[in-house]
């Protein structure tokens, strides 16, 4: 069933009739990242105003693969369970060369996590849920408010906004640009991306059909139905399927989008013509980012800061990683409990995360779309061997799927399991009648396992009963441990035996962004 778009109501902004008081935070863009950012800030007690040039959710499915970590973040924002219920949960990916399966993977063979490895859910649903949540929280969403200029002073930024009723200005302590890959705000600041632009185009299409494809990710190299190119198929809710088809560089994007060109190609993929075309787009592979995500009072989050080619699901998921790293810090700066210098840690951590995404995404692109010569030779050699020898299968690269990066923190560490080391997201586990990620919430938490925690101001204590899963993920062979966990659920420091002074020092370091 095709999605029914309901426009959000446009309301004339107060600033059109009289100057508005200075805002704390203005967010440009009500896509999934801008909305998540606003909700995250609200959960930390800061009400942002969100501006969007449009008045409907995403047209087309766009970001569809939400990773386990993104689902945990969406859960903290209040829309995680809804997204999982509606979405198509999958964990198996199959890769074919010509028409033979050469490799498959199972993403999360481990039990004891609230969220599955991946859920496919069209971006328009995620935006719909986030909009409803934002309204519940009283967040001011201003539709058909298009930013036309940004000016910065030493400690503020002013945006000029065009609306159906004319122009007005807003002054804000902070402006967050969540306005996507073509970010107008980025252009207004005269900033540009560094990185690679690949000479490769893909067609993406959503089709509606009564299919019998399993809930798996299917990827083909050089299939007979699309000779010499690559293809990807993903199942989405409501009988919508997403198909990505490599086009090659010598094609005309406008021509390729025409139904008379698209429909025959899709017929070849699905083997029949009993489907309805829902949405078509063409994109060029890019792996690029801004050198810095913090520009005085303007902060870049999501695609406005970095863009990757899509085969690792690293766009939307990478953006939610940004929201995770920025929200608690910016809220504390706005409330005056942290110095703005801590935003340098946002920049440092998320440029690091973006680079990891860019690296993985560039490698996948190179494998999928090799240059003539040695690149092509080895790509074909890997595919040839993959059908014959196990060792070559992990070399087949149809996208390395998004995982949260482990930030390189220099923090107190101990001989405890590597999966929960400082800089990593604290692994989930069942606790009593709850999940650890839920119990962690969005505060600094001192997780005491088999140990009596010291009493530290500004830290919530959590002392769950040590189960086998907690022991395996957090203790290993040690009898007890203390973990300091940040509001973005990243492990800040850990000790086998930690004192009050140890925890206080690590807490101060985390707030200062060291």
């Amino acid at each position, binding site marked *: 069933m095709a999605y029914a778009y309901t426009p959000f109501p446009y309301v004339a902004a107060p600033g059109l009739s009289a100057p508005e008081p200075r805002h704390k935070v203005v967010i440009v863009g009500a896509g999934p990242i801008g909305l998540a950012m606003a909700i995250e800030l609200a959960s930390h007690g800061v009400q942002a105003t969100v501006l969007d040039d449009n008045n409907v959710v995403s047209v087309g499915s766009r970001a569809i693969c939400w990773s386990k970590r993104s689902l945990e973040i969406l859960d903290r924002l209040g829309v995680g369970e809804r997204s999982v219920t509606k979405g198509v949960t999958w964990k198996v990916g199959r890769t074919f060369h010509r028409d033979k399966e050469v490799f498959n993977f199972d993403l999360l063979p481990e039990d004891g996590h609230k969220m599955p490895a991946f859920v496919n859910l069209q971006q328009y649903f995620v935006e719909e849920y986030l909009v409803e949540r934002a309204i519940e929280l009283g967040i001011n969403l201003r539709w058909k408010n298009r930013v036309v200029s940004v000016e910065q002073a030493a400690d503020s930024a002013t945006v000029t906004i065009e609306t159906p009723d004319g122009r007005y200005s807003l002054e804000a302590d902070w402006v967050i640009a969540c306005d996507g890959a073509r970010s107008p705000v980025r252009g207004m600041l005269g900033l540009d991306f560094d990185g690679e632009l690949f000479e490769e185009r893909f067609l993406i299409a959503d089709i509606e059909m009564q299919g019998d494809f399993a809930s798996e990710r299917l990827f083909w190299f050089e299939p007979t139905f699309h000779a010499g190119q690559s293809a990807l198929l993903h199942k989405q809710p409501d009988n919508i399927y997403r198909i990505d088809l490599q086009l090659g560089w010598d094609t005309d994007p406008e021509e390729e989008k025409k139904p008379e060109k698209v429909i025959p190609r899709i017929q070849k993929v699905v083997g029949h013509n009993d489907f309805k075309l829902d949405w078509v787009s063409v994109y060029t592979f890019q792996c690029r980012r801004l050198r810095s995500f913090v520009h005085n009072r303007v902060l870049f989050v999501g695609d406005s800061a970095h863009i990757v080619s899509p085969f690792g699901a690293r766009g939307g998921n990478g953006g939610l990683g940004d929201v995770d790293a920025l929200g608690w810090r910016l809220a504390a700066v706005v409330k005056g409990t942290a110095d703005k210098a801590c935003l340098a840690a946002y920049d440092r951590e998320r440029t690091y995360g973006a680079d990891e995404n860019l690296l993985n995404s560039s490698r996948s692109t190179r494998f999928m779309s090799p240059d003539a010569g040695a690149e092509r*030779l*080895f790509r*074909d050699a890997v595919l*040839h*061997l993959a059908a014959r020898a196990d*060792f*070559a299968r992990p*070399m087949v690269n149809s996208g390395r799927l998004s995982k949260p990066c482990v930030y390189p923190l220099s923090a107190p560490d101990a001989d405890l399991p590597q999966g929960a080391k400082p800089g990593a997201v604290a692994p989930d586990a069942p606790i009593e009648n709850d999940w650890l990620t839920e119990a962690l919430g969005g505060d600094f938490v001192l997780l005491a396992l088999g140990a009596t925690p010291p009493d530290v101001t500004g830290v919530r204590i959590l002392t769950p009963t040590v189960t086998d899963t907690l022991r395996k993920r957090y203790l290993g062979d040690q009898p007890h441990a203390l973990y300091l966990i940040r509001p973005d659920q990243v492990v800040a420091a850990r000790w086998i035996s930690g004192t009050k002074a140890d925890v206080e020092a690590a807490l101060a370091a985390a707030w200062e962004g060291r």
Partner: protein
Amino acid sequence: MPLITKPNIADTDEFYAKLLATHRGLSEAQSHALNARLVLILANHIGAVDVLDQALELARDGA
């Protein structure tokens, strides 16, 4: 671990002849493809990244 650069195959003439025999009857493009597969097979067998690094460097030398 250092890359072994001293002779290490018992009968080098025999191996060399087998290498050529393996390529016999293939076009140049097919031979290139075979060599690429062979590189991947042997690299996986060696496994040790430091050894592979030295091998890559030696192979690139003078290219």
